[in-house]
């Protein structure tokens, strides 16, 4: 006679029949709750030393302020930059800075400088044993709240520059601005993820990822007209920062871009960003498969 109760029958875990749609929603909800708790714990740790926390947050914003001061002084000194006025260029800086802040909020600790420690010491072994997605765990446990300072200053710069440049804020334009910041943030985050994935191979940290996380955004601070075809093509179709910052700015300002770079490309931005994020996810998975652990 077969026993009525199999051992472990009550446990939901383990490879078995895939959960139905309702089960998947419940699982996602439970997962989100875990990540929320992890992020909240990180935040509580960060604000334990309020003075330091405030200084760090102000610091991430202040860097953007100095960049804006630099852009305004230079562009006003020369009159214009490739036909763009100082407030128009500041709009680019603001969109890029807000997006970068958003991306680094979640991705800063995946950068090789920090992540190489996790890989080298083998602490990533522990991440892999946890019942969460490794990437989700890394992100939620290392939310760098200080980058909200950069998001705030970037958003403030967008508002100021749009006012000076005479942008008429309609709902579609507002949505384009939000899309720009979100897509730029997603790109910065995706590059951080790729940097983390690269670290599984190099083990040693390398600052070359900064060319894209910081360099891509600082390239987007200026109108694309100033760059040669090579740089333009790379940042349009390989790492699409120009689609995330410059093209939406064209829409907001009602400007026509140079030949081959029309404002209508803004329709492509979400798809291009999603594609790049998909590549980053694939890179991350390949990296994890390559990870061999450390020590005994």
């Amino acid at each position: 006679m077969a026993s009525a109760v199999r051992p472990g029958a009550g446990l939901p875990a383990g490879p078995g029949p895939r959960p139905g749609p309702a089960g998947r929603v419940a699982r996602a909800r439970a997962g989100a709750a875990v990540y929320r708790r992890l992020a909240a714990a990180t935040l509580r740790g960060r604000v334990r030393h309020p003075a330091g926390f405030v200084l760090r947050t102000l610091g991430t914003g202040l860097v953007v302020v100095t960049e804006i001061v630099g852009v305004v002084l230079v562009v006003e000194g020369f009159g214009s930059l490739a036909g763009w006025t100082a407030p128009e260029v500041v709009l680019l800086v603001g969109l890029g800075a807000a997006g970068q802040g958003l991306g680094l909020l979640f991705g800063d600790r995946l950068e090789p400088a920090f992540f190489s420690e996790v890989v080298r010491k083998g602490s990533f072994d522990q991440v892999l044993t946890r019942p969460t997605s490794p990437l989700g765990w890394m992100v939620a446990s290392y939310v760098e709240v200080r980058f909200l300072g950069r998001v705030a200053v970037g958003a403030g710069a967008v508002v100021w520059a749009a006012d000076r440049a005479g942008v008429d804020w309609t709902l579609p334009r507002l949505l384009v601005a939000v899309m720009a910041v979100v897509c730029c943030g997603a790109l910065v985050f995706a590059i951080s993820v790729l940097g983390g994935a690269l670290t599984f191979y190099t083990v040693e940290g390398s600052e070359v990822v900064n060319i894209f996380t910081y360099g891509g955004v600082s390239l987007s601070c200026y109108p694309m007209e100033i760059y040669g075809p090579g740089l333009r093509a790379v940042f349009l179709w390989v790492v699409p920062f120009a689609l995330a910052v410059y093209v939406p700015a064209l829409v907001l300002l009602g400007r026509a871009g140079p030949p081959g770079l029309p404002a209508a490309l803004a329709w492509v931005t979400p798809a291009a960003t999603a594609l790049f994020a998909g590549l980053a996810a694939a890179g991350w998975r390949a990296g994890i498969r390559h990870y061999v652990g450390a020590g005994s």
Partner: protein
Amino acid sequence: MAPDGTVWDTARFVRAYLALLSAGFRRQATYRLALVSGLLTNLFFGLVRTALFYALYRERPEAAVGGLDLADALTYVWMVQAMFGLVWASWIWEFPEAVRSGDFVVELTRPGDPWLRQLAYELGRTFNQMLLRSTVPLLGAAALLPLALPTTPAGVLLVAVSMVLASVVAFEVRFLFGTVAFWSSDYRAVFNIGFPVLWLLSGFVIPIDYFPAALRALAEGSPLYAMLMAPVHVAVGQSVPASLARQVAWVVALGVASRVTLSLACRRLVVHGG
């Protein structure tokens, strides 16, 4: 005479610090991946800024805005890339971290002077950086772009001297910043708030020649001038003797300041342990 009974004559003294200098040089030589990625980063940012200044001067072709013409501005761009690794050295956190962890106390038990030892060691590392990370971007740019670099041997020598003086000032600025760790374990927060100001005033964002008069005077009067803009001005041949004189003055002034700060810090240093 040192506590262990050795006689510290001048030759011994010089040899000891030269040994530290060459140890620093050799240590930095081991970071090859960092060198390559540093060079690529310099190349990328240099290209972006080159495009920027070409576009700006296209609007005002014959103008010398703030006293700089296109060749001067391009020289500034590539001098910044050549100086970057010397000023914002990758080992900037090592000293404050050693203070925070207590490891620094070992330095106080070693023979000789802790400040001079650190200077010798960091200069050794800096010279190694200079060997490739400064020369490759600068010479590469000079070969392809119309830079305003000196062409006489004496002129080239003065640029090199100015870059060495700037490296010493940068060491002193880093050292002074590192001593924050004696008073606060959260030195990174202090750095985060101070860095943007240093970044702008030292001329890393835009040349201080483009600043409004008051801000420019402030930047020129500050020690940060000796860290970046002085070598740039020497390279483009603007007020060369004055720039070098300011650098020497700041090397001495900041040297005194950092030694005074260190002796104050050591007086309040509390070492934990069993």
